[in-house]
């Protein structure tokens, strides 16, 4: 019975298939043209030497040599991979910790004051990344920065600290700025996850004598695990491609302490105009990003299909 109505509405199955095609084709046409051609072209370019500064040399085929120098000669790239992974691990854990803390604190009561506080905590997320960089650069300034002033007034540090030019402080400073901007994202997603949990379980647990800490470990955490996984996917992929903040705060310095893969790749293109080499690097970055992304998606897959 259902299939008869179905055919009346949608016509014959074959026409049905072409209708879908007509709906989806424009969007995926554009995606395939822009992304498909880009990926294919950058793979092709990665096997060539192409210097924009010397156009007369043209594009010459060099085989795998770009990849060889990337893997065995370019120490900046190796440092950048290490820094990026360190940064990703650092900020994702920071943001998960504080995001979860804020979400738990805010889900404690549902009233007007927590709703207002939620908006306050969301504000950093709405600020343009470049502007976040400028704000923190201003506040972390070694001579005029207000952060040094506050820390000195409180007696935490004796003399002004050069946050962004000190080799052991530059990376943590960028991490703090990044955590300031993106913790609200984690908080918001987790808060939505926590709010969706049924209250009866908690009441049952309380009647059975479970402490708040125990009900957090044994009820909240397992139940919001799917949300945590999705949040981790988005934050990991975002942190991995970090560019704006590094560009505004340190430009990869001092030395190569805060150089990230996107930053280094940009420099090779914009400062040295080595298109072939930059493409090889971007292919490597793509491979790393895809590995991380597909690992996550394989873990998450069961949930999405449900």
């Amino acid at each position, binding site marked *: 019975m259902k299939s008869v109505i179905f055919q009346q509405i949608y016509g014959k199955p074959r026409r049905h298939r072409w209708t879908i095609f007509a709906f989806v084709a424009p969007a995926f046409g554009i995606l395939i043209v822009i992304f498909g*051609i880009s990926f294919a072209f950058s793979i092709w370019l990665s096997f060539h030497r192409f210097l924009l500064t010397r156009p007369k040399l043209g594009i010459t085929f060099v085989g795998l040599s770009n990849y060889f120098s990337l893997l065995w000669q370019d120490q900046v790239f190796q440092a950048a991979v290490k820094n990026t992974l360190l940064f990703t691990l650092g900020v994702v854990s920071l943001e998960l910790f504080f995001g979860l803390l804020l979400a738990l604190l805010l889900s404690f009561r549902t009233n007007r004051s927590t709703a207002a506080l939620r908006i306050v905590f969301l504000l950093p997320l709405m600020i343009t990344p470049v502007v976040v960089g400028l704000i923190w650069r*201003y506040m972390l300034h070694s*001579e005029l920065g207000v952060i040094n002033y506050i820390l000195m007034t409180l007696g935490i540090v004796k003399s002004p600290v050069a946050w962004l030019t000190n080799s052991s402080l530059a990376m943590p400073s960028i991490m703090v700025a990044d955590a300031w901007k993106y913790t609200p994202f984690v908080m918001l997603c987790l808060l939505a996850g926590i709010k969706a949990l049924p209250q009866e379980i908690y009441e049952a647990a309380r009647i059975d004598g479970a402490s708040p800490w125990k009900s957090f470990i044994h009820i909240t955490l397992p139940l919001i695990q799917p949300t945590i996984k999705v949040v981790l996917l988005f934050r990991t992929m*975002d942190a991995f491609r970090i560019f704006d903040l590094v560009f505004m705060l340190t430009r990869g310095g001092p030395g190569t302490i805060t150089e990230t893969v996107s930053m280094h*790749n940009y420099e090779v293109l914009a400062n040295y105009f080595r298109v072939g080499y930059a493409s090889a690097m971007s292919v490597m970055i793509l491979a790393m990003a895809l590995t991380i992304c597909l690992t996550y998606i394989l873990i998450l897959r069961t949930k999405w299909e449900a």
Partner: protein
Amino acid sequence: MKESSVNFDFKAGLVYVVLALLATIVLFPLLWMVLSSFKHQVEQQLWPPVWISSHPTLVNYIKLVDLSAATYSIPILPGVLNTIIIGFSSTGITVIIGSIAGYGFSRYKFRANGYLLILALILRILPPINVVIPLYVVFRALGLLDTRLCLIITYLAFNLPFVIWTMTIFFNTIPKDLDEAALIDGCSRVKVIMKITLPLSVPGVVVAAVFSFLFCWNEFLMALVLTQSKVKTLPLTMMLYRTDRAILWGEMSAATMVVIVPVIIFVLVIQKYLVAGLTLGGVKG
């Protein structure tokens, strides 16, 4: 606070104290920029820093729109204008094409459905540097570098996956029965879309459009690579306040306000849809 008025709830008090403390820390950078934007140049350079200006001034805001050569500054209006033109054109096209695809995904089920959606998701979260290098070469060959068109095309492609996802999810919430009832009554598919689905999907379209526009408003890396001097978007204009001679802190903090206030207003207006929008949307870099 009804609970605590009866007998003081120590635990609730503690939670509120911790929340208030954290909120102060989170708000401080923004507050500092607001205060700085009303300070004179001299007060920006003082140590210890001045908290609240003794002579609050609007001079930093005036400098942003002052085109006369008397004051050395960087006008912000060309950046705003470029970003709005690029943002509106690319958002308009993205929302139309993305909604059509979203409708297809939600109303017709076919085998590749899920795979295509996951493909779109993956494209959305990959590092943009992979795409920007080949696009730079292509646009250079076509003579399109440093034009609005190249950014419109690039942003169009980057926003499409998000719009497709948002609209698919949104159309899924509009019952299919409505379509089918109208189709049985003899309405054509096009008429069903125009008369039933489209009016119902206005909130979804608004969310998709706002977040696509915010992506264009915030985007930095692609604008940095694909444009040089003729077309400067807002984030690139912001960078200019750090000149060779000095950082123009006053103008910079005023410009910061210009950049973030519209975003905050936009997002507060569509607060209800924040989770969906922020997961895939444009508020990130």
